[in-house]
């Protein structure tokens, strides 16, 4: 039996369906990312779990306890918002202690818990600052501490990093994951950033148009996308239709064939064997640590990624090369 069980959840606004028949379960201590483009319904799903939006159908069970109709106050769910949602007229300490004061805990319990969580998020010394005196990263750490200090059963994170700079985002990402592991906290993280999802998650739920289209470990979602949408959304992908397949491999398929650019090996024409595809370099783009080649083979242009190992390694435009693609790196998608 899983820690969190969601079954048949649906939410409609007026005439339009945001999502329908959504079901999943989370294990205790699992870090799961809900990944999808904006407007796919992921935030609304999160709000339904928190009780901030009422589902039109379905059940939400946490630790054997049906909370579908509970008020947000009694769900034991913590949430961190994209825009921090800190209380502007309260100090850092007052913000973090708000939930404890609502529980009417004795003052020294509050003090003790505050001290622990402030150390956890490394905000010692900032207790009497106001939110507007903090940087974006510090604010989000206050919001995290405020959600953690009441010891929620589930932590929901609604794009908590998207308002931050790249460098701070990377740091805070690590910190969140680290704290989550230490507290063994069941966490559902919402984002539209596939890199963030892959780095952080035990499992990724990919959402598209109100449906969870794939729910797997990060590696699996990336290397074995269930649908064309997933293949496209998770990084770059060569998607070949039946005609291109026939030209390249001599047999057609239903749907599309997905091949990741980094799984194709570029060989010098001399090294290429009978099973390899003959091809010509058309263009290259320096992406930083990776060079992305556009390679044409039998009338189809494929993207091929190669590590950037200096000038001598670069294949000039027009070079004749061989492409080696392993059978297990090709994947048929719907």
């Amino acid at each position, binding site marked *: 039996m899983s820690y969190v069980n969601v079954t048949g959840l649906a939410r409609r606004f007026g005439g339009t369906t945001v999502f329908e028949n959504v079901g999943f379960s989370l294990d205790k201590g699992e870090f799961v990312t809900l990944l999808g483009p904006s407007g796919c319904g992921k935030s609304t799903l999160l709000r339904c779990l928190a009780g*901030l939006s009422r589902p039109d159908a379905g059940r939400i069970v946490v630790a054997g306890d049906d909370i579908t109709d509970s008020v947000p*106050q009694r769900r034991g769910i913590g*949430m961190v918002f994209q825009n921090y*949602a800190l209380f502007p007229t309260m100090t850092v300490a007052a913000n973090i202690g708000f939930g404890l004061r609502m529980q009417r805990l004795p003052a020294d319990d509050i003090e003790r818990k505050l001290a622990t969580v402030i150390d956890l998020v490394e905000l010692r010394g900032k207790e009497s600052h106001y939110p507007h005196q903090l940087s974006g990263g510090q604010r989000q750490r206050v919001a995290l501490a405020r959600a953690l200090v009441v010891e929620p059963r589930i932590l929901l994170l609604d794009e908590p990093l998207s308002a931050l700079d790249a460098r701070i985002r990377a740091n805070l990402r690590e910190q969140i994951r680290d704290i989550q592991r230490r507290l063994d906290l069941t966490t559902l993280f919402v984002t539209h950033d596939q890199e963030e999802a892959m780095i952080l998650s035990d499992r990724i739920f990919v959402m598209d148009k109100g449906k969870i289209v794939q729910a797997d470990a990060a590696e699996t979602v990336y290397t074995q996308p269930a649908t064309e949408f997933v293949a496209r959304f998770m990084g770059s992908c060569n998607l070949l239709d039946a005609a291109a397949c026939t030209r390249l491999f001599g047999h057609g398929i239903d749907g599309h064939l997905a091949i990741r650019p980094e799984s194709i090996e570029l060989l010098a024409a001399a090294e290429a064997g009978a099973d390899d595809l003959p091809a010509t370099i058309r263009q290259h783009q320096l992406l930083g640590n990776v060079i992305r080649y556009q390679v044409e083979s039998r009338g189809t242009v494929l993207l091929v990624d190669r590590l950037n190992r200096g000038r001598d390694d670069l294949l000039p435009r027009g070079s004749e090369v061989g492409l080696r693609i392993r059978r297990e790196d090709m994947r048929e998608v719907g």
Partner: protein
Amino acid sequence: MRADLYHRLVVAALVALLAVPVLATLAYSLAGNWGATILPDSFSVRWYLQLWHDPRFLSAFGHSLLISVATLLLSTLVIVPAVFVVFYRFPALDRTMNLLILLPFAVPPVVSSVGLLQLYADGPLPLVGTPWILIGCYFTIALPFMYRTLADSLRGMNLHDLMDAAHLLGASTPRAFLLVVAPNLRTGLMASLFLSFSFLLGEFVFANILVGTRYETLQVYLYSVRMTSGHFTSAIVMSYFVFTLVLTWFATRLGKQESQA
């Protein structure tokens, strides 16, 4: 550079336009005697002393203060929850409210006070001549100021996220409002209260038509003494002006403290 000079002139002209009458009045109120000369012959503060020892002036001032403060108390109690409800539950109502609050502002005081005179002169609610009708009237005058300012404050915060965060941390809606939202409204509320206060203190038409000398307010008193010595009335004008300046300064300082806190 020529464009710059032109810009500076425009601004200077605007400032002068507003400052000259004030300075002239100040000179006049301090003049002991001012005959045919350009500057007065002597200076004295006797007009100010005379004003601030007049018992009728002091009682009228008291009446005005009482009515203004009562109005603002009533307004605060009604409008603060109302504007919260509009923004939190019925955001679509904001448009309607914005039109509604313009009405008492757009119907001129003479017209509406004449209307109110008909309604409340006798009949079931004979309010005319009592301070109560002024409090009611002034409520509708304060409404636009207060609604606008509070609405701006609410628009400036993430009301729904703040309420959601407070709910998830265990607060009920009233507690979340009192602990999280209300403190954010304080600066805006204070500013609008000060503005309403100085406006209400200066209101004449309603006070004169609806109540008159039966409960004389400051403006009705000032109106009735307007034909006495010009120096005396200048002293009134300057006293009032200083009073307003002090109020404004106080309000600004309060606003600053808030934003530093």
